[in-house]
């Protein structure tokens, strides 16, 4: 468990990790899509998106489509870098014998 302390606390949370994992391969994703895929409640997802936004990992923008508000999320270069670091730390943890 000691090695888990090295993992980024912003990403080492189920919902935030799921959100960033979804955004890593998408150019842009809607709030509704993220909610459907993660199974999170709108309230909890909003809170976690705010945390990711405050940390500079994602960008959140709002626009209207056919008179309905739409929240769009995309990962930032910083978020991408942190995710890669997280994955590398995870690899080290899961395969400690490999350098």
């Amino acid at each position, binding site marked *: 468990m000691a090695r888990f302390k090295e993992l980024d606390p912003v990403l*080492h949370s*189920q919902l935030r990790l799921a959100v960033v*994992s979804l955004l890593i*391969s*998408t150019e842009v994703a809607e709030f509704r899509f993220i909610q459907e895929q*993660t199974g*999170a409640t709108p309230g909890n997802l909003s809170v*976690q998106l705010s945390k990711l936004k405050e940390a500079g990992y994602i960008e959140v923008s709002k626009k209207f489509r056919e008179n309905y508000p739409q929240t769009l999320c995309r990962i930032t270069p910083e978020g991408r870098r942190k995710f890669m670091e997280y994955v590398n730390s995870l690899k080290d*943890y899961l395969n400690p014998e490999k350098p």
Partner: protein
Amino acid sequence: MENQGKVMSGEESLKIITEMINKTKANVRQGSFHLLLWGWLIFICSLGEYILDRFTSIENPWIIWLLVIPGVFISFVYGYLKGKKSPFHTYADMIYMWTWIGYFVSMVLLFIIQSGRMDLLVPYVLILTAVPTFISGFIIKFKPLIFGAMFFWFFGMVAYFGGPQISPLTLPAAMLTGYLIPGYMLKNKISNGTV
């Protein structure tokens, strides 16, 4: 996914990452519509022109190619509406879309510079068509489309070296093997939910 207090294990983290990344893979696989639309359109136009030229006395058999104009319109409108409705866009979607737009621009330019000798155009059209087909096959990890691209290269060479009797038939043959068969296989996979 609501339990924020729970400490995740490495395996759990990895599972979440894999699961979520897999959920954003299938978007571009809806592209069977364009393969079938263009496969049928070019198949009908090329074979139609061949039949009209060989077996009728119609003066301008190439006129059948005007069907391509509504095809371009339908393709762009469908792509635009699908893209607008999609709740997410992957980088693969973007590469897929811009590769085909780049191909479309190249084709238009090719038709402009070679408009005087349309009969010479077929090998170049086929060889050029192989490129976006090949890239798309790799993007969506769909082997029949990769093999389809290889057929375009093959029929491009046949069109160039085959002589005037064989060349006109290479276009419909390439459409059948390069677009229609992979297009129906892809459609089948999508409807079976195996994509």
